[in-house]
Every structure is written in structure tokens, then in C-alpha cells.
């Protein structure tokens, strides 16, 4: 008989607990009943603010949180536990359900702290913790917008959560006030210097910061609110959000007589067991050995400990690192270890670059040999390297780690210097030792292998560059050589070709490679040459470099025939053009299908039919759709404002414009795009390499999406931009990708592997941190100016046309191996069997 585990609360930590328990409890010794107060399964609260981008709760969903198909888990939502009867070992829920337990886990999280301010219960006053809170805030913003155009809002609290709330309001198009009692923003994480810079950076983003003052009262003022601050300032606002910290939800435990921690929270020992041996507490409601943690990583490790303990294994909570690295409103903030120099005799090393907006402080021991902690604001790129060094001996002079001369910690000190117990991946608590063991003992030979073996790098991804460095340090060569003919990576070859202006493969391989080339390097170089504008892709020697499909500007099918896909920008097509497609298909006996990319594919053309088909199509105003190329494929669109009652912007118009702008651009892999007219996302823009979603304020640009084998949702890069700004950023994004990606690396994989990830991308293409944006834009402008239809180029050139014959000695003769049969009234290939030319 299995025993019953009752879990009160279904937040991120409760979900991790159930997951860990169910994956390890192979014999099914526990049946689990989870009661959640919210009406939806656990979701990614850490990413709550991003809900504003889409207003789609599915985006926050945690995988597997519904336990579908697992008969041993019962998830009851919208029915919180109201009381515990410890004697009878049973709980009672709000709906009156009585449930017996053998063990009970409290995972009730925290509640937002609302200071006892007069007027705190007025309508228009909100907290910030759940999806519903955000829906309520949005509704209030909309109501105020109806009344008076641009609503005003204030956030009480200038810490982590307050700035999250301010960001959400910014993303809704408001310019909020932030009121913080402490003399600086994020008082817990940063020091005065860092707070000062943060204040400036946040102010630049159209947020008004009031520090060193409290909110003394909120009053109704007609249909608005008036907030009075302690320093005499009054704010006329439409809504106010309390986001001033949290308090553990320990009431269930308190009422049941469990011991509580000094600062609240249900007190537990290191195994997360409360003063009642049958009751555990995990996550933000727990006070483990007297300490409450407000971050998810310690909660996860409590969940693992409790699950192990329930299964009779020994485990104990190791204490947790409360280091944080955040991107708040586009501003990097990180703090780790003893950030406030509380250690006796500790010294501070500060590097403050007001011009470039970066503040860095290290706290070291009195003899300057041991790193104790630090604060980084504006540029937190050294965080990954510095945090694991905490508590260890410093490999170099502290100033060299953060000063500009050393080029930053990344260069001044190698991963070799880190101790084995240094945590490389803080999200999943994986140490350097564990990763090295995976490399040496389990033979992990790449970042992907380490991810699946240790879980490191699978959450926020910020530790991925470190994984690469560890591999190199272990002597695992992650060769970037393109193939046996070139020791360079594709990105390096791109730079060589760009700088030397070499225009042929022969010259490039003679000067920078060895041998004659192969099916890997030839197409890769062909693509580089094409991006840099070297005329028609079949011009001169380039023809023999092209991969199968590019060689004949069509997609080769399994019987050696081709498919023809004309471009239909944005999927918008005139009836007359549709008729031409039908006529051509009929005339040449082609199989016809609507593709997944909103256009028409005509299959079964032989080499010599291709130019004849193109002639008909080009005359009717069609051009190549590059379905064959590592190039822009389609920009999918939804009907948007043109027809749809929900449309916010002209999505078809933008899709057509973008498709025409980027058509023909050769890139490391194919490029796809989509434009949706509103967040209902009918064009599936977030599964594209660059996807655009209209909002009432303009366009949101998402990058790095992928369908296909390894789907990935695109990440928001910029929001609410107008069309000019959007196009400028896409120009830069695409050219930066084209320059730096590996061969056959889609933007999704490229972004995942990019050192510094999305933050770095943002810095390069939005903030121009490398100073290359002008160059990138100029390169795109050149591409756009020089675009020509490739099919037309062949039709106009007898020499190129001559190659489109099946047989050099018998032009016009049909290929005897090609035959068709009829299926669903259309021709499909039949293979005649391999002639007797193979010896095995």
C-alpha cells in the first residue's frame, strides 16, 4: 500500500518537489495529493514580468506541471488547505474536502508585504505576485487609458520586486514612479555607489525614482488616487502597486502550533522537517535552520532535500548562495557574497566608470587575498567568473579582476583558478568538480553533453560560456575547424573574406586552407561569398561550390527531380498569379502543394524543365522564393488590421516589406520570419528566427525562435518600436548573425551559444557596444541595393542556361530513370530500382 503525501501549495517549489519525488520513487511508494490555491498549475513566477509581452499565460507554463498521465499524482486547484489536524494527520480544504496524510509538505510561498498605510485597500491599489495580479493591473491601466489617455502609476518598493513591477508598467507604456524608503534602489543587493548608478540608469528609462522617503497615505481623488510621500511630495496617479518585499505564508503552520522562525516562516531542520516529524516545509514559507530565502534556487534545493528524505535517503540543505544576477529594465545588476563588506576588517576595491555606466566593487579580506563578495551594476559580465571565487584565494590582484586594464575577470583569471567546490551553475547547484567529473568520467565532449549529464546550463543559461571554458581547460578540444580543408571556423573565414576581399574559393583555399575542398567547405564559402555580394550565385567558379539545391536554384527531390517555389511575399497573392501557378503546374505535369510557409510548391520538374518553368513564372511577375537556399525563406503573416477585428497594426504590410527587404540574403542557415497583428499570434512569429508581434504601441521583436527538430520560442529583444527602428534592429541582428554564426547553425542555436546570450546580443545590436552597428547597417543596405532575382539571372545568361540539361550529349532527352505514378490524382515519383552498377 502506498502512503499519502499531501502538498499544500502548488508554486515553483512544490512542483519541483513532486517532480523529484515522482522521478525517484520508482516503486510508487507515495501517492501525492497537491492542493493549490491559485486556479492554474505552478508557473514560472520568476519570469512573471514577461507575461506583459504576450498576455499569454501559457508562455509561463512549467513543463509537466499538470502531471498528465501520472495516476499517482492528484492535482486539486483553486482549493487551498485551510487547516491541519496534526493529531489525526489530516487537512481540510476550503471546499470542505478532508484529506488524510502520512506526510504533509507546506509549500505555500510568500505573500506580498503591504505596509500599514492609510488607503492601502482602495480600488486602484494592487500587489504583484500572480498572473491574476497582472491581469488586474492591466485592466486598471486600460480603464485609466480610456478615461485620460496616458495613465500614471506608482510602485511602492525599489527593491528587486519593485523594479520588476516598474518594468511591467513600463512595458505597458507607462512612466511609473518608484518610491523606496532606503536611500538607494535595491538596498539589499547593492551598495550606495552601485545604487547611485542604478538610479541614474533607471531614470534614463523614464522612471521617476523617489528614494529615502516612504508612502505615508493614499487617498481617493475623484476617479484617481493621490499618494502622499513622507517628504511632502504628492503623486497624482491612476494606480499604485505595492511591491515592497514578501512575508512567508506561515499561517497554516502557526495555527497548527508548529514552531516558527524568528523572522517568520515555518521552522525546519536541515532536512526541511518541521517541529512535527510528519510535516515538512519548503520554499519561501520555510525557515530552514532559522533562515528564510526569497529566491527560487534555494527553494529548489529544499524540494530535492525533502523528496530525498521522504524516500528514506539522507540529504540535507547545504545552505544557499543568495547571489543574484538580474537584468532589470535592461540594466545588469549582480551581487554576491558579502556585498556590503560586513566582514570584520574587509577591504573594498571599487571601479566606477560613470561615462560608460558601469560600477564594480569587490569585497576582499583584510590581507586582500580572499574574495568575500561584490556588486556589479551596469555591466555584470564578470559575475560568472567572480561568484565561484568567493571564499577562495584570489588568483590575481583584485583590481585586475574588475579594472579596465585587465580587460575584466574573464581574461585576468582562468577557470583553472576556481576551486572544485565552486558552483558554476547556480540555478541547478552544479559545482566545477561535478562538471569536470562529467567530462573525465562520463566522457562529455561538448556543452550539450554536459547539459544533459549534469543539468548545468539548462535554466537561465548564463553559465554556458563557463561550461565551454571548463571543457577547454580539461583539454577537450572543441574544434571550430570548418572541415579538414580549413582550420578556421565559419565566422573566422567570413572575417578573412571580408577583410581581404578575396572573391573566389580557389584563392581562399590556396591562401588560407589546404587540399581541394569538399561538400562541407565549398557551400559554406559559397554562402559567405554570396553574402558579401559577388554577383550571381552561379557565376563563374561559384556554380561548382553550391550545394545540391543552390546549384540548380530548386530543391532536389528523392528521384533527382526538383521542386519549384516562387516567392509570395507575406503569403499575399493576387488571383491572377494563383491562376498562373495552376496553369504552369498543369502544363508541366507538376504535383502541387501548399507549403507550411504560406506559398505554393510545384514538384517533379526535371533539370531541363526548370528554365522553361521559370520563364513562365518570371513573365507573370514571380521570382525565386529561395526555398533551396540557406537564405531568407518566408515572412509569414496574419491578416492583421487589414481584416482582423483584433489587429493592432498592418501585419501583412510589414511582412511584405520585410520579405522584400531580406529576400536573397545568404546566411549560415535558413532564415524564417513571421509577423502577427496582435498577441493572438496567428503567424507563429515566436517560432521564427525573427518574429514580430504588433502591440498598440508598435512592434515587439523576438529573435532566435525555431520550429523543426528542436523547437525554441524566440526571446523578446525590443518592444514597442516603430517600423523604422524595427527594421534598423533587424538589419543589425541579421548581419551580426550572418557574420558570427557557425555553418548550419540556426539563430536559435547561435543565440544559445553566444557568449553572454541575449544580453550580449542586446548590447551589440541595440546599444552598439561593439561600435559595429553602422557597418552592419551598411552591409545590409548594400545587400538590399544589389538584390537581383536569381532565376531571371539564369534566363538572361546563355552560359548558365546551358547547364540546365539532363544530358550533355543529348539535350532534351528524357532521363530514363525518372517515372511517375498517380496518387490522389497527382503525379508522384516511382523509383525504377537501381540499375546493375553497384558491387557490394
Amino acid at each position, binding site marked *: 500500500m502506498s502512503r499519502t503525501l499531501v502538498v499544500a501549495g502548488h508554486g515553483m517549489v512544490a512542483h519541483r518537489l513532486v517532480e523529484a519525488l515522482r522521478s525517484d520513487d520508482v516503486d510508487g511508494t507515495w501517492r501525492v495529493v497537491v492542493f493549490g490555491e491559485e486556479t492554474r498549475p505552478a508557473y514560472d513566477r520568476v519570469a512573471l514580468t514577461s507575461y506583459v509581452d504576450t498576455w499569454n499565460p501559457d508562455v509561463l507554463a512549467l513543463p509537466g506541471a499538470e502531471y498528465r498521465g501520472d495516476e499517482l499524482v492528484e492535482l486539486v486547484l483553486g482549493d487551498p488547505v485551510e487547516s491541519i489536524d496534526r493529531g489525526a494527520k489530516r487537512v481540510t480544504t476550503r471546499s470542505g474536502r478532508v484529506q488524510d496524510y502520512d506526510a504533509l509538505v507546506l509549500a505555500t510561498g510568500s505573500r506580498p508585504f503591504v505596509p500599514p498605510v492609510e488607503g492601502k485597500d482602495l480600488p486602484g491599489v494592487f500587489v504583484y505576485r500572480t498572473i491574476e495580479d497582472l491581469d488586474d493591473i492591466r485592466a486598471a491601466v486600460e480603464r485609466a487609458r480610456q478615461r485620460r489617455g496616458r495613465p500614471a502609476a506608482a510602485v511602492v518598493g525599489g527593491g528587486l520586486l519593485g523594479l520588476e513591477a516598474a518594468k511591467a508598467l513600463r512595458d505597458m507604456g507607462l512612466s511609473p514612479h518608484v518610491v523606496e524608503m532606503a536611500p538607494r534602489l535595491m538596498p539589499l543587493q547593492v551598495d550606495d555607489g552601485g545604487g547611485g548608478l542604478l538610479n541614474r540608469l533607471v531614470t534614463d528609462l523614464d522612471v521617476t525614482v523617489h528614494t529615502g522617503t516612504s508612502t505615508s497615505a493614499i487617498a481617493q481623488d475623484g476617479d484617481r488616487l493621490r499618494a502622499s510621500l513622507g517628504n511632502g511630495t504628492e503623486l497624482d496617479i491612476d494606480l499604485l502597486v505595492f511591491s515592497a518585499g514578501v512575508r512567508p505564508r506561515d499561517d497554516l503552520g502557526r495555527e497548527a502550533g508548529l514552531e516558527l522562525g524568528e523572522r517568520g516562516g515555518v521552522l525546519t531542520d536541515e532536512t526541511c522537517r518541521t517541529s512535527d516529524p510528519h510535516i515538512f516545509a519548503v520554499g519561501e514559507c520555510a525557515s530552514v535552520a532559522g533562515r528564510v530565502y526569497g529566491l527560487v534556487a534555494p527553494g529548489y534545493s529544499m524540494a530535492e532535500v525533502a523528496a530525498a528524505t521522504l524516500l528514506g535517503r539522507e540529504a540535507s540543505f547545504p545552505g544557499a548562495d543568495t547571489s543574484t544576477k538580474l537584468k532589470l529594465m535592461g540594466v545588469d545588476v549582480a551581487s554576491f557574497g558579502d556585498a556590503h563588506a560586513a566582514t570584520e576588517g574587509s577591504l573594498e576595491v571599487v571601479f566606477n566608470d560613470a561615462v560608460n555606466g558601469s560600477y564594480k566593487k569587490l569585497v576582499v579580506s583584510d590581507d586582500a587575498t580572499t574574495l568575500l563578495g561584490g556588486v556589479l551594476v551596469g555591466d555584470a559580465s564578470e559575475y560568472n567568473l567572480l561568484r565561484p571565487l568567493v571564499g577562495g584565494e584570489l588568483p590575481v590582484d583584485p583590481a585586475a579582476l574588475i579594472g579596465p586594464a585587465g580587460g575584466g575577470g574573464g581574461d585576468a583569471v582562468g577557470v583553472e583558478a576556481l576551486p572544485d567546490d565552486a558552483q558554476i551553475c547556480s540555478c541547478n547547484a552544479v559545482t566545477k568538480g561535478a562538471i569536470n567529473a562529467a567530462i573525465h568520467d562520463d566522457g562529455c565532449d561538448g556543452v550539450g553533453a554536459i547539459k544533459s549529464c549534469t543539468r548545468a546550463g539548462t535554466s537561465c543559461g548564463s553559465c554556458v560560456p563557463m561550461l565551454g571554458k571548463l571543457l577547454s581547460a580539461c583539454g577537450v578540444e572543441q574544434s571550430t575547424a570548418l572541415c579538414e580543408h580549413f582550420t578556421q571556423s565559419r565566422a573566422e573565414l567570413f572575417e578573412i573574406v571580408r577583410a581581404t576581399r578575396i572573391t573566389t574559393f580557389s584563392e581562399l583555399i590556396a591562401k588560407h586552407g589546404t587540399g581541394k575542398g569538399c561538400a562541407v567547405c565549398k557551400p559554406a564559402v559559397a554562402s559567405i561569398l554570396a553574402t558579401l555580394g559577388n554577383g550571381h550565385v552561379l557565376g563563374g567558379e561559384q556554380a561548382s561550390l553550391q550545394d*545540391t539545391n543552390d546549384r540548380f536554384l530548386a530543391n532536389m527531390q528523392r528521384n533527382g527531380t526538383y521542386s519549384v517555389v516562387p516567392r509570395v511575399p507575406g503569403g499575399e497573392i493576387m488571383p491572377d498569379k494563383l491562376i498562373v501557378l495552376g496553369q504552369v503546374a498543369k502544363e508541366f505535369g507538376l504535383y502541387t502543394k501548399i507549403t507550411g510557409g504560406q506559398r505554393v510548391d510545384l514538384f517533379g520538374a526535371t533539370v531541363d524543365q526548370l528554365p522553361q518553368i521559370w520563364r513562365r513564372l518570371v513573365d507573370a511577375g514571380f521570382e525565386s522564393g529561395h526555398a533551396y537556399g540557406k537564405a531568407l525563406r518566408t515572412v509569414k503573416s496574419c491578416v492583421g488590421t487589414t481584416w482582423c477585428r483584433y489587429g493592432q497594426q498592418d501585419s501583412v504590410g510589414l511582412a511584405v516589406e520585410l520579405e522584400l527587404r531580406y529576400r536573397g540574403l545568404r546566411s549560415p542557415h535558413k532564415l524564417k520570419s513571421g509577423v502577427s497583428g496582435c498577441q493572438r499570434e496567428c503567424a507563429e512569429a515566436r517560432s521564427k528566427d525573427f518574429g514580430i508581434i504588433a502591440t498598440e504601441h508598435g512592434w515587439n521583436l523576438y529573435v532566435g525562435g525555431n520550429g523543426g527538430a528542436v523547437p525554441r520560442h524566440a526571446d523578446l529583444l525590443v518592444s514597442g518600436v516603430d517600423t523604422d527602428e524595427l527594421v534598423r534592429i533587424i538589419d543589425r541582428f541579421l548581419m551580426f548573425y550572418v557574420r558570427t554564426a557557425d555553418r548550419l547553425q540556426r539563430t536559435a542555436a547561435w543565440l544559445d551559444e553566444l557568449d553572454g546570450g541575449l544580453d550580449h546580443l542586446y548590447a551589440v545590436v541595440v546599444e552598439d557596444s561593439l561600435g559595429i552597428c553602422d557597418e552592419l547597417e551598411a552591409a545590409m543596405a548594400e545587400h538590399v541595393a544589389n538584390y537581383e532575382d536569381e532565376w531571371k539571372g539564369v534566363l538572361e545568361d546563355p552560359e548558365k542556361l546551358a547547364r540546365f540539361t539532363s544530358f550533355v550529349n543529348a539535350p532534351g532527352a528524357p532521363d530514363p530513370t525518372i517515372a511517375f505514378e498517380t496518387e490522389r490524382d497527382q503525379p508522384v515519383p516511382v523509383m525504377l530500382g537501381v540499375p546493375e*552498377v553497384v558491387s557490394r
Partner: protein
Amino acid sequence: MTVLSDEQSAGAETWTPVCRVDQVPLAAGVAALLDGGVQVAVLRTDDGEFHGLSNIDPFSGAAVLARGIVGDIGGVPVVASPIYKQNFDLRTGRCLDDPDVRIATYPIRVVDGTVHVGVR
């Protein structure tokens, strides 16, 4: 099944003229149709040497090898099948990616600027 020797030009009986030398670009190929429906891929390396291979890709059954990329792997002159990218030794027809597979080779000779394909 035809069992082939590595000896190429010896023993050919019929020589079919198929095209002029300049109709075959360097590091590329063309297909030729011989009597009896035999298809030969006439391939040229980047230094101008000619090779004849069956045009049929044994892995897909499609007549496409003349449209493959010509290069070298570890110094061996090869053509890569455009369908699934296996490499074939231009001199012997041996598949570098599957030692059990070898395709027919055809001797090529050039007379007065005309390319001839030989059949035994």
C-alpha cells in the same frame, strides 16, 4: 552484378564522344547518356583531370552524381552525392563512407578537345 577492376582504361571497346572539354567546368560534372540507357557522370577535378562514374547514386537510386560537389577527402579525389552526401572515390568508385559499396567507373579519354567515355 558487375565486378570491376581498378584498372580503368584498359579493355574498353566502345568510346562514345559526349562533349567538348570546355563544357565540363573545373571541379564539376555533367551527365552523359550512352546507348542502352547507361548514364555516366563525367566529372572533372579542379586541376582538369577527367573521371567517369556511374551517374546513379546507389543510396537513393536517383541519377544525380554528375550534380555532386567535386573535391577531396584526405587527399582522395571525390564527388559527394547531392542526395545524402556520401563521398565516392573518383578513381575507383569506392564509397568512402561505406566500404561495402562501390559504383561502376568508366574510362575517359580526350581526343582533339572532345571528351569520350569508354565502355567495356
